[in-house]
Structure formats: structure tokens, C-alpha cells
């Protein structure tokens, strides 16, 4: 068994928490884990990519090799597109429909790609995937910072490797008490979003 998950987002979106929830659950299940974050120099606002590799045998490179990503989670649209090349031919993407404009886009020196061109490029890639409004959902629950947990909730519907009930227990354990209830709510909401997206296909 080998599974490579890549989480692409922007600093402050909570890649690391999402990755650590999954890692702890998978370690409990007896798998080997190799993970790494690639972060630039800034605390916030830069591209952040988390690699999470799961296996029942030895793992070597902490970075998932190009073309070997099984599940590509995009917490932000541009960041997912930027890493799309790493997705394997039969890989799946899970995209949060959320745009964080870049400095250069705001200056009108660059153009954030239009929804139509994004859709067209994704379709042309021939890769399968789902787009959900995780940030919008997180805001409805009370805080856009819950985006990562909504996305993890959605991810858990994508692979039989993930048992939602057990992951919820890990989530509850790892959540600070102040946000535990909201996290669990966000997790469930994410699952429902993906179920809806699956039906819509």
C-alpha cells in the first residue's frame, strides 16, 4: 500500500494541522509515514506545500516525486494549479474554490486566471477531481480558519483508507478545547460537501 497526498495552500491556511491529523491517524493504523513541509521565508502569505507519504513498507524521499501524487488537495486555487504537474495520471484532485490574489495580481501586473480558463485547463488535463467551497463552508461555521478541517473531512470520503469516525477521534484529541466543537462540525460539513459533489458528477 502506497498513498501520496499533497496539500497545496497559502501560509496561514493550516496545512500542517491537516497533515498532522492524517499522519497521527495513519500511524495509529500501523502505517509508515514520511512527511515534509516546503515553506518559504515568510510566516504568512507565501506558498506552502505539505507532502504526506503513507506506506506499509520503507519510504525514502520526503518530497513526493513528480507524477506520483495520488491525492492533490488545493486549499487555494493557484497553489493547486502550481502543483498540478505532480499529480499522477490516475490521481485525484480535491480543490477548495477559494482565491487568494497575489501581490502582482493586485497590482495588475499579473492576471489571476479566470474561472473559465481554470475549468478548461483542469478539464483538458483529463484528471478526475472535485471542487468544493470549503472556505465558504468554514465561514458559515464561524471561521475561515476551519478551511483545513473542512478539506480533511472531504478527503476522508475519497479513500477507503480513511475511517471518518476514527479520524474524528484524532481530530478531537488534537484540537484545542476552544475550537474542538467547531473543528468536528467543520469535519462533518466537509464530508457532506464531498458527498454532494460526488452525486453531482
Amino acid at each position: 500500500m502506497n498513498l501520496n497526498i499533497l496539500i497545496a495552500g497559502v501560509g496561514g491556511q493550516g496545512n500542517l494541522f491537516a497533515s498532522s491529523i492524517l499522519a497521527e491517524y495513519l500511524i495509529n493504523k500501523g502505517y509508515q509515514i514520511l512527511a515534509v513541509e516546503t515553506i518559504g521565508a515568510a510566516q504568512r502569505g507565501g506558498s506552502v506545500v505539505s507532502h504526506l507519504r503513507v506506506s506499509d513498507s520503507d519510504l525514502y524521499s520526503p518530497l513526493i516525486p513528480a507524477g506520483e501524487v495520488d491525492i492533490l488537495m488545493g486549499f487555494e486555487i493557484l497553489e493547486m494549479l502550481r502543483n498540478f504537474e505532480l499529480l499522477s495520471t490516475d490521481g485525484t484532485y480535491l480543490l477548495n474554490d477559494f482565491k487568494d490574489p497575489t501581490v502582482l495580481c493586485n497590482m495588475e501586473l499579473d492576471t489571476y486566471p479566470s474561472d473559465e480558463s481554470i475549468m478548461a485547463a483542469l478539464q483538458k488535463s483529463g484528471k478526475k477531481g472535485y471542487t468544493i467551497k470549503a472556505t465558504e463552508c468554514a465561514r458559515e461555521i464561524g471561521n475561515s480558519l476551519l478551511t483545513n478541517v473542512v478539506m480533511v473531512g472531504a478527503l476522508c470520503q475519497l479513500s477507503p483508507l480513511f475511517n471518518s469516525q476514527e479520524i474524528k477521534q484524532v481530530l478531537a484529541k488534537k484540537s484545542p478545547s476552544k475550537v474542538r466543537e467547531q473543528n468536528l462540525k467543520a469535519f462533518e460539513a466537509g464530508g457532506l460537501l464531498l458527498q454532494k459533489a460526488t452525486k453531482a458528477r
Partner: protein
Amino acid sequence: MVSKEYLMGNEAMGRGAVEAGVKVATGYPGTPASEVLDYASKFPDVHVEWCINEKVALEIAMGASLCYSRAIAVMKHNGTNVALDFLMHLNYTGVRGGLVLISGDDPGGISSQNEEDSRIITHLDAHLPVFDPWCPQEAKDMVRMAFELSEKTELCFVVRPVMRVCHARSQVKLEEIATISKEPLFEDDRSRFIMSAVREPKAGGVLRPVLRHKWLNSKQPELSKIMADSPFNHVEEGEGSIGLVACGIGYAYVKEAEEILGKKFPILKLGTLPLPKEKVVKFAGKMDKLVVYEDSEAVVEGMLKELLYDEGIKVEVVGRSGFLPKEGELSTKVVLASLATLYPELENLIPETVPLEIKIPIRTRTQCIGCAYRGLLHALKLIAHKTHGVVTGDIGCYDAGSFLPLELQSTIYCMGSSIPMATGITYSGSKQPVFSIIGDSTLFHNGILGLLNAIHNAVDMVVIVCDNRTTAMTGFQPHPGSDTDISGKPVAAIDIAKLVTAAGATSARVINSYNIPEVTKALNKAVREKGVSVIVASSPCYLLGKRTGEIGFTPQKVSLNPDLCNGCKICIDYFGCPAIRFGDGKATIDQATCVDCGMCIAVCKRGAIT
């Protein structure tokens, strides 16, 4: 049963030091190595300290080692340069208690100003033994063993992890924490610990530096013997006569390539410098060609060529000197591409990657939303523009002011360079006013020396100290201006304004960087003064303040009146807060990301933001 913990490489190395019974752990924060000390700080028996800079950190560690205590100093490659002067002496004197230097490298310059390979200064220059780990477990094992070997050989051992090892997370085996029974005691040995050009009576008047150099050289055969049997080097059998020499992280990528290609290559896995000579000779002797995979310079490649030449073994050795890319970080992709040139039949086994047919805008770094530095950078940009001034920059969060939109700083080199470079600009005869912008931690680290030099020489310049009370960029480590240490214990905070006043600065204005009119007024006054005028732009880091409850502004909801906005873009091009968006000729506030700092109100000259 062996217990395991899910640790990042840095934490694993901290664990290795703790298990080895380390007594003193010092360092200066720097990506990729910062979290080593954070881990060690959880153990109350270890004295853990973020020091003013890396040289001081290494000197403190050495002081402890001289009393037979085990000590570790942790830094990134740039920091090892700072500590190099001291390193070039402790290699001659040797150590007493185990002394380990962790020098974290950043191939690819992902979070650094350069992609220097610190194996060069630590091994080829200082002639110290170096361990180069490939994964968190090996990094921990290496640190632990480095302490033992350091005591055995009386030499400082260097562990050189690259960023991918520092930041990788995996399950790491925990072992017992050793108890060191030796009582700390300083005993004199002036022939070793007084490093001076003095003639040594006991050695017939030979100069001490020559004598100690000889001692260091005499240690090399002992090191070679240790590395010959080291568990960190091994050979793996495989097909063909092209041997893959996999050094440090290179081993991870070579093994990954094997998995992808479903093929076994002859592999010489290396993790030590000096090299295990016999293993190398035996392996090379069976090969027609060796390909050396290492980050990031052709260090082992060069050493292999020398060794094999001396041994009279004719084998082609290629690697980072040209066969592989000379710049950038190693990856599975690089290994696969190189194997495909050696074995064209493997080409079709390499996973296909097709780029998306869409232009993806790059994401440049900027200040966080709510960062006080944005107001400061904005005000400084306008004044530098007005006065045709030159702004020299330094290392820290505020360096993002040098990128678009502000493009404020004109130079950024290494820690502390801003003030001396500005000094040189005035000496050149240029009539441009000069401003240096430097952070609090960076000022203490090395900047203070350039500042004292400028004050002493009455250089006309404005020095802006970005004082957010923490080393924010690397994860909020305390510095000498902070009032608590790594463990949260209260310590004396050094007051920057008092310090520079005592040194004789023309002025030392302490201002709140969120207050743009106040910043502007202070800059306008300072630029007209003679001598060194210091502005301490003080306000806590917003990200840290959100955690501690100490933020530098009173939150106020801002709104933008579209009827008053004429699309001049001053808020975009001269301020650039990501919570201000621009489209259809007008600016808007993105309330979802705005943190209500209210700084932009002063930026808009038309009063559209209230």
C-alpha cells in the same frame, strides 16, 4: 519494546542531543535548523539558549565543553560563516566534553540568501569530521554518535543536515537518555587553550599554531579509521557497472528512483567525511563510472577523484561538477533524468508529468496582513522617493519591502550588512541621503557593530530599527531585546534606544510603526540631522501578539467609499496590504482577511478609507 515518536528531523536531532546527555545547547535561529533547540528546551536539565549570534553560540558551547560537559551549537549555513572564525581555532585546540555543531544547509536557497554547502568550510577548510544524514532517524543517530566520537577524538563533530532532512517528519526510535556522571571542572592546559603565536618551549620553540595544526592533521588517520567502520556508510549490490554514490539526502532520492524504476543499482551510500577509504576503493574498483549525488556542491565528487587518482584506480567520476545540475537542490526528478541519460531504456519508466495549459502567476512574499512594518515601509518609501535617498536592507521579515510593490531596499546581503554598506555609500561621495533598515534581532546579531562604527565616524545616515520584540521570520525566537527566554523565564531586555543613545547616536526616536503620520514625522526630522539618527520603530509582531494578547493597535473596522476612490492605487503600489484588492478601477477592502489594524486610513490621500 522500542518506543517511537513522530518527529521532524530537527526535533530528532534535538532528541539525539538530549539522549547523549547534552548539558548546554545554544544557537541562533535560522531556517532550516531552528527547531532543534525548541525540542531540547523541553528538558529542564539542559541549559538551552538562543544566543545573540552563531559565533557567540559556538563559543558558549565550547566553554562548556572545556569543563567536560557535552554541548551543541545549532545554526544554519549562513550562521556557520559567522561562527567560522572561532571554528578555525577550536579545530586546532580540540575539545573536552563532546561538542557537536549542527550546520543546516538550504540547497535551492528556499529560505536563504544563498545555497552554500557548509561541508566546504567545516570539512575541507576546518578539517573537522562531518556527518551528512539522509533522514530524521539517521540525523538523530548521527547526533548521538557525534557526541561519543567527539569525546573519543577530542574533535568537534559537525552534523550537516539539508532542509529536507531538517523538515522531514517520520517515526523516530527513542532511546534512553544518558546520565553523564563526570563532574564539570575547568582545568588549565594553556598549550592548547591559549591560541596565540607563541613559541612552544616544550617543542623546541616551534610556533604554537604550527604545532596545533600538526595535531589536527595527526587526527585525520584516526578519523578515517572511525569512518571506515561507520554504520552511516554502506554498499548495496545492483546491476550494471555504473555505481551510484548517494551522499546524505542523495540516498533518499536514489532509493526513490530505484523504487520508481523497479531496478537495483550498485549503490555506495555515504554519510561521513572523511570518506571510508577502503569501501570507496573496493566499490570503485568494480565500476566503470561513478555518479555522485550530493547537495549541493561537488564536494564528495572532488574528494573521490583525488582519492581514486592517488590509488591509481581509473574510473570516471561525475556529479554536480557538470553532469548533474550545478545549481539548485537535488531531487528524485534530477536523479531519474540523469539515469535516463545513462540508461536510455529507462526513459519510459519515468512518471509522465504534463503541465497545465494555463499561466500561473507567481506568489511573491509580502508582509503579513496586520504587520506593523507595512506602515513603516510605506512611510519610508515615500520619504526615500522624495529625498532621492538610498535604502540599504538587512535580513528579516521587513526584507519583503524590497520586492514589489514597494521595491524599497536597494541592497540585501547578510546579517548586519545594511549599516556598513550605507556607510560606504556616503564615503563614496554620493550626495544621496542613506537609510538603513534592520530588525531588532539582526541589530543585536551583527548590526550593532556597523552601527557603532558609523556613530564613531559621525556618518550622516538614518538607521531604522524594526523592533517587533522577536525573531519573527524564523518562528518567534527571543533575542537580547526580549524580556523572556526560550523557556519563558524572565530575562533582562536590552533597550535599543538607550543602547544607541549611550553609544552617541544623534537621536533615538521610539515610534509606533502602526502610526504612519508619527513615522513620517520622525523620518522627516531624522533625515535632516547630522550623524547617525536612529528610529526605533517599535510595535509587537502581530502574529505573535495574537497569541500572547499583545497587539500594537486598537482594532477598528475600516471601510472604503467607492465614490471617493479615484483608483490612484497608492494603497496598492505604495502600501500593498493583501486585504486591499483592486479591480475595475477601484480598491476594495476584503473584510474576510482584513484584521482591522486601520493603517490604510492614513495611506489614502482622498479619505476614501475610513
